[in-house]
């Protein structure tokens, strides 16, 4: 009952945050003492007429706040255009984000596979060699420059064994794509949702049953995913370990034993109570992955969100920068919200 109003309240408090993010982005971009229009058009195509045309279109001659309002208005109505590629920003952003989502999911999978079991084992075998190894893994993971690890995994798994490849992103067949795009017409609301989920190639392929594409996607992305998992898995394992140790030493565990509960039931209490801090860290990590792993995308040549934004900054592409920041801020907000809701699911003390 209170959940809806809680979400509404949270979204309300996030509106100023969102506006602040956009405003700061814009002001930074505005402060650049260079001529963005030149950067957009390129020296070759430069002629005074086109320049003037673009300048009027993007209100470059108006005061900064009018420019800003214009961009925001375009953004919110979904009409924003990428002045370099001359396409709707959202079309491009959607396809880029879909790739980032794929990478985030694969990376997250590795993170969980590495982090959770290691953390639990380390807690059970506290102060043993395994525990120490987890500690070292966590320290190494946070000390290793990510790009160096990426190069090494490429060296081992690409150059030497060729179990992956470093170009392109597997897409479902054309028929599948058009089928998914047609869904909203046949099924009203659910179809829209399905179509949106299907726009992530991996999910689209799953929906069409094109499993070879899914396998290919995994083959393409497991390397960066593994790298992300290795870099943060140790850290996650440490969090799991510490919070499990905390909950194991809680009084209610001793009381559960005093009640003569079987071992399995006692562990159930311990594990569920240990989940709260773990969910936060995992949630924020997933949010971080969704916001684009720029370096991983650069090294592994993945056309994701991070890379898109990086290129946009390099070319002073305001509309794209604004759109990307908007998306990233929204991801931050949504991830925080989801983490809060998950809290409430795990812990009945938290009710909104």
């Amino acid at each position, binding site marked *: 009952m209170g959940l809806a109003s809680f979400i509404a309240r949270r979204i309300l408090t996030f509106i100023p945050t969102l506006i602040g993010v956009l405003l700061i982005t814009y002001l930074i971009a505005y402060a650049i003492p260079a001529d963005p229009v030149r950067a957009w058009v390129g020296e070759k195509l430069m002629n005074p007429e086109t320049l003037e045309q673009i300048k009027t279109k993007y209100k470059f001659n108006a005061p900064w706040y009018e420019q800003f309002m214009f961009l925001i208005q375009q953004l919110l109505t979904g009409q924003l255009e990428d002045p370099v590629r001359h396409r709707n920003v959202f079309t491009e952003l959607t396809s880029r984000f879909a790739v980032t989502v794929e990478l985030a999911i694969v990376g997250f999978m590795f993170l969980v596979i590495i982090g959770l079991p290691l953390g639990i084992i380390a807690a059970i075998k506290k102060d043993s060699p395994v525990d120490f190894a987890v500690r070292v893994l966590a320290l190494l993971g946070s000390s290793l420059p990510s790009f160096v690890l990426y190069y090494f995994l490429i060296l081992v798994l690409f150059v030497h064994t060729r179990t992956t490849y470093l170009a392109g992103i597997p897409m479902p067949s054309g028929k599948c794509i058009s089928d998914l795009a047609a869904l909203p017409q046949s099924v009203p609301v659910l179809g829209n949702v399905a179509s949106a989920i299907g726009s992530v190639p991996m999910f689209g392929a799953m929906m069409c049953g094109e499993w070879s594409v899914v396998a290919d996607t995994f083959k393409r992305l497991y390397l960066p995913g593994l790298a992300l998992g290795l870099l943060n898995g140790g850290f996650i394992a440490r969090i799991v370990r510490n919070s499990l140790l905390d909950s194991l030493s809680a009084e209610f565990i001793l009381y559960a034993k005093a009640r003569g509960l079987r071992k399995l039931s006692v562990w159930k209490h311990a594990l569920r109570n240990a989940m709260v801090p773990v969910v936060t860290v995992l949630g924020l990590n997933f949010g971080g992955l969704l916001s*684009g792993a*720029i370096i991983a995308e650069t090294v592994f040549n993945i056309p994701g969100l991070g890379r898109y934004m990086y290129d946009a900054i390099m070319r002073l592409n305001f509309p794209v920068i604004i759109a990307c920041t908007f998306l990233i801020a929204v991801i931050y907000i949504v991830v925080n919200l989801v983490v809060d809701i998950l809290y409430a699911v795990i812990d009945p003390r938290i009710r909104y």
Partner: protein
Amino acid sequence: METIFRLLRSIIWSYAKLREKISPGWIQKNSSRIKEWELMAYAYSRSLIGVIGGVIVLAVFILAVIGPLLAWEPYWEYKIVYDESLRYRGPCLPPSCTGYPLLGTDEWGRDIIAMSLYGFRISFVISIVVVLLGAPLGIILGLIAGYKGGVVDEIIMRITDIFLAFPGLVLAIAFASVLPQRIRGFLEVNNIARAFFSGLFGLRQEEYGQLAALLSIWIAMVIVWWPGYARIVRGSVLSVREMPFVEAAKLSGLSTWSILFKHILPNVLSPVLVMMTFDIATATLFAASLSFLGLGPQEPVPELGFMISKAGGYFPERSSHVVIYLGFILLMMALGWNLLGDALRDILDPRTRRAIEYRLEKEKKK
């Protein structure tokens, strides 16, 4: 271990004796404090992780200070101009081959060991300064937000939220691409600043364009660095401010600022210190990542991340020795701080305190 404890203890005691000379009775009045320091020194000396971390950090510090003086090859000389074969020459290890360069060269034929000596200074200075500027900013804002509460808290936390909603790297990219031209202009006309910053980074004064790039990374990082501190400090302040000793201090006549700095700050500092130690490692890698993306200084400045990114283009056929060696150096720089932070967290943990206290007593008796 024992020697390290003895060394730290003699440092503590010579400091204490110095204070005793200045103001007699100091040792007696501060006997508990000295005991506290000894306890820390003991706990630290018993932590293998901490000692290794400390040794690495000390080594990095020394290399960072003397590195640029030690470097036997100037970074601005491109050797390949005289000898094209020096480009990405592999390592030359003693048994099989003797001579120069030991671990190989980079794309301009420069000895990578010599270059890394410059790199130490650059990475070290950036990481330390970012944390030393960013943390206090966040701490002060967090203190005010947590203690004042109400509207002030709301405003500060909303601003913090804005910066947290930005992914750090993206914001830093944005800053790093905006600022250099302005800073460059400033350095061009201001000789003193130019001399100061070039000295700080161990670079030539002519490199002011590159210095501007470094400084903009710096500023960008400071700006994205404080929100984490503001949040953690605010959280701790909220719990400490409810402690009766804060009310007692009010009744003892202390003003709000005195309470903030004499009672609240010292009691929220432990987690912040641990976080700062870890953050120096993160900042080192973060700065390297920015340079890796090409947002930092360009040729000929031997910044580690930038050199790795250059070598990456020839990886792995010709340049793996560069990536391995420079990657290892970055790893060590970060690892040292991370190990130290991990040990510090254990040392400052009140839960383990009693045990340490007792073991020290026992040790002393022996």
